[in-house]
């Protein structure tokens, strides 16, 4: 009998581990749903539906006066400028940090060679620095900088540079480690410096993903700069804040439409760049 079973076919040795992971995930998730007061039925309650309908009815018709449209365009441009400058600064912050934590670009790991302990310690320090940078929400940084620098876009730009620098750095490093590392390794083994191994060994494989993630983060930065506008950091958000306070639904609707167009634009740019790099 025992012999028969052994001959039939071997069992998947990982099946038990997968099943355990699934059960644990469900056990952990369920209380979280309860804590988050997740109950979709509330949405469809008659009274709540009426409240929502009244709120949304205020949105039509969108405000389309030439004067207001001019104001929206000016704010949209400001939002674009905040997001673009912010993401550029974040890129400058992220690249050296990402290089420092990417293990596949470590020369001392080959062998291992001289300087291994120093390099490992440096990676740990930079990794926690990245956590600190992205751990504090950009809205909090914006509040701090609005106090220091006064109302206006400069606060939002700095807030984006810090938080998004941390996010970009972490994800760049992860992208660089998940692509095929053999080309970079071969270059390092023939004496290439780290930067050259990145440019000639890792980036050709990783560039499309890095570009698409960066453009997506730019899109997120547009959204975030709108949020930061609510705390006085300029752009579309500040305009929307004023419209909401005056209960002017039409103006809010116009701003939201412009906003959707911006996100569409980001999406189109991303698709185009990816096609170019494929």
């Amino acid at each position: 009998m025992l012999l028969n079973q052994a001959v039939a076919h071997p069992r998947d040795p990982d099946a038990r581990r997968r099943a355990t992971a699934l059960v644990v995930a469900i056990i952990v998730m369920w209380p979280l749903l309860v804590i988050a007061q997740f109950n979709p039925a509330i949405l469809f309650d008659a009274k709540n539906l009426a409240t929502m309908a009244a709120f949304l009815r205020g949105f039509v018709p969108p405000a389309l006066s030439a004067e207001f449209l001019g104001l929206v365009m000016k704010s949209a441009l400001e939002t674009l400028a905040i997001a673009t400058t912010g993401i550029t600064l974040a890129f400058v912050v992220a690249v050296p940090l990402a290089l420092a934590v990417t293990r596949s670009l470590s020369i001392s790991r080959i062998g291992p060679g001289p300087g291994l302990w120093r390099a490992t310690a440096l990676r740990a320090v930079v990794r926690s620095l990245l956590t600190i940078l992205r751990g504090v929400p950009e809205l909090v940084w914006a509040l701090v900088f609005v106090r220091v620098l006064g109302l206006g876009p400069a606060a939002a730009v700095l807030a984006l540079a810090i938080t998004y620098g941390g996010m970009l750095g972490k994800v760049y490093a992860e992208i660089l480690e998940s692509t095929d590392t053999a080309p970079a390794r071969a270059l390092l083994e023939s004496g290439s410096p780290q930067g050259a191994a990145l440019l000639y060994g890792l980036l050709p494989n990783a560039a499309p993903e890095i570009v698409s993630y960066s453009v997506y983060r730019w899109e997120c930065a547009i959204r975030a700069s709108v949020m930061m506008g609510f705390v006085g950091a300029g752009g579309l958000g500040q305009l929307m804040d004023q419209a909401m306070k005056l209960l002017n639904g039409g103006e809010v609707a116009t701003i939201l439409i412009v906003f959707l167009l911006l996100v569409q634009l980001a999406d189109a740019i991303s698709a185009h760049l990816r096609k170019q790099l494929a």
Partner: protein
Amino acid sequence: MSFQLHRVSLVHPNGQRALSGVSFAAQPGERIAVIGSSGAGKTTLLRLLASALRPTDGSVEVLGMRPWQISAGKLRRLRSRIGMVHQAPPLPPRQRVITAILAGRLGVWPWWRSLLSLLYPADIAGAREELARLELSDRLFDRCDGLSGGQLQRVGVARVLYQKPEVILADEPVSSMDPALADYTINQLVTEATTRGVTLVASLHAVDLALRWFPRIVGLKAGEIAFDLPPVRVTEQALRDLYASESGPLPLHGEEPFVLPTRALGRDAGRRKSSCS
């Protein structure tokens, strides 16, 4: 002395023993073929010589330096003087052939040259010349993902030729090529080593290529050197013992019947005393 291994052993992190007590040295300009069945330790031996692996035991000296006792900067410069042809060329699929070849000199180029070369290739003539030697110059501006396995291997060879290293290591460099092309490519590596007087160590699965082109044959079996002889003294029995773990005939690259050579092939093949261990 081009390199010297003294009683070198290597145990991989997973506990697998790849080499044990290997002593092996070469003078500048020597051409050595390392043969043996798969898993005998050929790749490990080459990676030790390339300073890419650190021995568990014993000492390694390459180009007069002990790679694991020098500073990081010196080790990097030492590595830039050693060229490695990989069996599976580690080239990014989206990279163009010209960029892949020029990358051979990244170890000696200043950083700004490496950077500018991505905007406009720094040395088109130089890269084309090496590729032409492998009869592939029409693919200079093609992407690597458009090339066949054998063509990629030739790009890998061209990169090392362009690097102009003082030691050329080649790990089964012609495994994806047909017999005529394999012969031609080995000829190019041998010519490069002879004209520039650099050391060439190639691991080859195929016995006929090794015996035809190399004046010194090292047989590796289960992580130990089984013999170290000029080709005229390599007997059929020694080869049968070397490949005892593989059933069937000896692994050859060509299809024609294989006859052991009876005379010296290279200038210095007959002169060297055997150092069978």
